[in-house]
């Protein structure tokens, strides 16, 4: 270890790569998915970076919209498919609004990846249960595709995804096509299946996401890792269900949201006790969550 508080220590730290400086990237395509939830595809201007930008499912980037500012956005693509970064973004605040108004082929800035991401190495060999509610599918889609691309390294794979209506289902075409696969139990539910003229008929279940548990028989609980993401009310009921099934609290992975301004554990905004959502999270086990007051509000 370099001795602390010496000139050598300071000058070596003054020479590091500047983590606050974004890399130039280009918005290559916008794919509308559902109302105010589009998929945005980016490529770095430096072609080399498209190959070397390594990330884990569940990590996020700080996205700069030139002329507006910066916001943390989770990555929806999988690191197993290099070249294009996909982000499912909800039109929510100042920066995301500016992104929606940005013409394709515009420049943006990207720095990262940040956060711990899902512990995919530790999850290997386990069964994986992915439970998503509403927009919670955005970070979980990265995990889902990562597992599908490394299918032999994981055990049984179950996806449960619930939204209000079929019009709210993120990645609907992609997920519906996955229902054909024999090595994935892809269970989709909506609370109400609207039928209006021309609507794409709903072939999934009707009900709440928690109702989908009845279709996944004989889950080997001690050997299963649950990755869950959704709105507060979703957490309340899904956690209740998982705990009833005797899931260990550190086998439940949750993805949390806070105001992550710097992304590198310095600015303080996302701190909860001694944990920083941006570096210690955004993926926490339920055990972490219990031990961090004010971490989640149900």
């Amino acid at each position, binding site marked *: 270890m370099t001795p602390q508080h010496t000139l050598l220590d300071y000058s070596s730290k003054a020479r590091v790569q500047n983590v606050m400086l974004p890399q130039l990237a280009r918005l290559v395509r916008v794919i509308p998915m559902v109302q105010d939830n589009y998929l945005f595809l980016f490529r770095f201007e430096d072609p080399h970076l498209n190959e070397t930008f390594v990330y884990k499912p569940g990590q996020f980037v700080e996205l700069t919209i030139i002329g507006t500012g910066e916001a943390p956005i989770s990555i929806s693509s999988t690191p197993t498919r290099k070249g294009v970064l996909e982000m499912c973004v909800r039109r929510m605040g100042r920066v995301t609004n500016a992104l929606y108004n940005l013409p394709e082929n515009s420049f943006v800035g990207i720095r990262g990846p940040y956060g711990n991401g899902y512990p995919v190495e530790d999850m290997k060999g386990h069964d994986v249960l992915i439970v998503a509610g509403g927009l919670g599918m955005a970070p979980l889609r990265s995990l889902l595709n990562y597992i599908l691309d490394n299918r032999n390294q994981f055990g049984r794979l179950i996806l449960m995804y619930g939204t209000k209506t079929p019009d709210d289902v993120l990645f609907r075409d992609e997920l519906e096509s996955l229902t054909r696969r024999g090595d994935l139990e892809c269970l989709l539910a909506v609370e109400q299946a609207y039928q209006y003229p021309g609507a794409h008929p709903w072939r999934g279940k009707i009900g709440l996401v928690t109702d989908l548990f009845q279709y996944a028989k004989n889950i080997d609980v001690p050997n299963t890792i649950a990755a869950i993401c959704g709105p507060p009310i979703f957490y309340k009921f899904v956690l209740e269900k998982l705990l009833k099934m005797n899931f260990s609290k550190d086998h439940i992975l949750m993805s949390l949201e806070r105001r992550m*301004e710097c992304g590198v554990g*310095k600015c303080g905004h996302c701190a909860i006790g001694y944990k920083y959502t941006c570096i210690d999270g955004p993926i926490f086990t339920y055990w972490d969550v219990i031990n961090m007051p004010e971490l989640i509000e149900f």
Partner: protein
Amino acid sequence: MKILKLPKANFQKFLLSLKNYGEVHIPKKKSEESYVFAPMEDPSEVALEYLRTIIPPKKYFFKPKESIFHYGDGNHFNEHIEDIDKKIVLFGLHPCDIHGLKILDIVFGTGYIDKYYFARRRNVLIIGLSCMPDERCFCRSMGTDATEDGFDLFLSELKNSYLVTVGSSQGDDITNDLKDLLGEITKKDTNEYLKIRNERKKRFKLQLDISDLPYILELQRESEVWDDLGKKCLCCGSCSMVCPTCSCFNVYDNLSLDTKKGERIRQWDSCLFKDYAVVAGGHNFRANRADRVRNRYYHKQHGFVTQFGKPSCTGCGRCIQYCPTQIHVVEVFNKIRGEE
């Protein structure tokens, strides 16, 4: 450890000679009860009697507001580090403020390294100065009343001279250059130092027992003390601004009027400000004042301790002196400890 003696008769010469190593900044008197670290124009300006400046030395390394990069000149983000080559000699830091910088070294140097902070840290020589505590100093309880490192030179005041402790290679270079001003220490000097040191020890009136404070805070999370404090605190953020270890910042962009050029700014922030934990969509994770006040106290004496093994408080007394509603950090913790 090399320790020399600087007779007080040579002090002004010593201070003037420091100009050879950079722009000399000293504590200066600003008004009846306030002091500031500012550039020295004349050695006579040095306020050797000062105990605490309003703004701590962090301002030299972590700027109150700075542009960190700009864009609009071609397709690049252009790094910008203010004062990247400016050499400064910062004279007169008391041990608590040196510890404050050591804590910031941890914050900005752990995990992702903050280049801006260290680009300036490497260019500033630190010359420490001993002190006598007042009724607001509780550095002794924080273990920050003395320091063995974190300075290039440290001056301990005796009656007619200063003991000069050499703390770094650059400090050694200075004492070699100025050897005509310096002498050897004697047994008499050591005895004089011990006498002053023991007198100083007796002068500490304010104490805060932090032995099991994180555990007590864990038990007292729902204490009414926080609600009472939330009613008294204005959430003005003064305590954060004057704190030698508070390092939260905001990041935002400033644009030219034609929106073609811009710069990214980072600026001191406070966890007490209302919008500190607001996320897109408007949800505020700490909407109540009591929650925000508690968060600050827990960060200093619980979170940081868990993470780095010591509190992020130096006992400098600034937050006590500058709180507009007379909130007293030691009294708050004593209440929490049930030691009112």
